[in-house]
């Protein structure tokens, strides 16, 4: 793991980030896992998600199953298993590459009706905050959506303190983004906790650390490795 300042950007996923997408209609969907070094050009065949009708009794979207897709960074490429995933309508697929050595990456649908770079409907982005401070975020695509995450420092002097902290880490803060509103606008967590940004309905946004936007004055993507 490289020592680095803690920044986050849903367009450049890292080992402490997850991207999740629900699939609400039947069909076969192709997607790519692109490292940011690939500049949007896929160097591997697309993976597929086959969405079949629900077998249960619930209505579409009323219940769902989560499917986790762990990514591995090997030989300069992202590998995932399975390459073809079959899910039911309303299910959620969640991607994460836990390798700190992996470069930043994005999940891009083909065609791009879903993408981690532009969060639309029924999707989510998570980030575990590793360093105390106040993190203002904004939509790099210019919708004006923004918010702040306050990360409090944790001082663990005893084993009991560490155990309490570990218990806190298992609880996430939830930020709901729907109809052009962010609720809550500010959240407070402790170092190491995760924030889940749930995008219910949106025109296509990113959750981007404002410092990245300020660094480059534009969309900030060049600042993310």
């Amino acid at each position, binding site marked *: 793991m490289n020592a680095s300042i803690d920044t986050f950007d849903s367009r450049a996923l890292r080992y402490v980030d997850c991207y999740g997408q629900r699939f609400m209609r039947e069909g076969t969907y192709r997607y790519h896992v692109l490292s940011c070094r690939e500049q949007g050009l896929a160097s591997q065949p697309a993976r597929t998600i086959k969405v079949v009708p629900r077998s249960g009794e619930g209505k579409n979207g009323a219940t769902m199953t989560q499917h986790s897709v762990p990514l591995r960074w090997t030989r300069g490429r992202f590998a995932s298993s399975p390459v073809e995933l079959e899910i039911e309508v309303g299910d959620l697929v969640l991607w994460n590459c836990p390798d700190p050595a992996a470069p930043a990456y994005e999940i891009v649908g083909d065609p791009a009706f879903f993408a981690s770079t532009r969060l639309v409907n029924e999707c989510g982005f998570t980030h575990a905050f*590793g360093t105390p401070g106040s993190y203002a975020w904004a939509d790099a695509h210019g919708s004006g959506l923004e918010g702040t995450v306050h990360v409090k420092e944790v001082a663990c002097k005893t084993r009991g303190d560490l155990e309490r902290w570990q218990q806190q880490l298992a609880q996430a803060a939830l930020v709901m983004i729907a109809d052009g509103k962010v609720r809550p606008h500010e959240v407070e967590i402790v170092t190491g906790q995760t924030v889940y940004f749930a995008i219910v309905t949106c025109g296509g946004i990113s959750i981007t650390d404002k410092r990245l936007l300020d660094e480059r004055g534009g969309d900030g993507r060049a600042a993310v490795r």
Partner: protein
Amino acid sequence: MAQILAALDEGGANTVLTEAIASVPALSKSGSGSLGPFTASYTVHGHFTGGSIDLVAPATVRIEHLRCVWQMALSFGIDLDDFLPHFCLPQVCVHIPCVGRVCTPKICLSWPTIGVTVPFGDDVEASADFGLDVALIGGQWKVQIVVQNLSQLQFGPGTAGILALIGAAITPPLLVIPFIGPFLAGAVDLILAAIGIAGLTGFLGPILSPFLSGLKIPVYAQDKHFKLLPADGPFDPDVFVELDAVDARIEHSDEDELVLTVGISP
């Protein structure tokens, strides 16, 4: 053979040798060594001051409290995985209204290796017995005193403070490592404990000892073809004598003296 005798009592020897010690050029050295569990590279510069002279017949110049003032730049890497506990972000689940329960995976981290550079300095003191060394080198007689026995190095009171400096140098690179916050204080303590005073003196001793054990202090230097009188007009040229032999020893009569005997011939 005609001889010239020059004698220096201990008071005079203290004056002459104190100046001679101060005139020894600064020494420098680079390399690497074991600093506790770490391999550290260093560059060190040192110069000498002080010391009180004791002449011991027949051929020993004892210098007590000889000080080497040194400055060092030290660099080493710390693999934090050796000091910090294995750490994983646990699985985190949230309930999203109208959607259901969504969980992130457990994510285990590896701690990085950090590089630390620490500039610091202190002094070290020792007592040494020097022998007298007389040599004719390149047409010049040289008398110098050369270390024969060296006492154990006595590090100055600032040496313990070096650990605090290392601690201060470690902290900034640790602060920027994500998720280290709750482990930070413990990490610094563990790293400093791993080095310890023993590790520090064990590192510095082998580096600084050669500075002292290899010390040569010039006492006297004179051309063998020695100009006794300068020219005084076209019919009165320079007058030279040959310094045929030089001997140096410590003689004890009423008091100890450093005696130089020079045999000369026209």
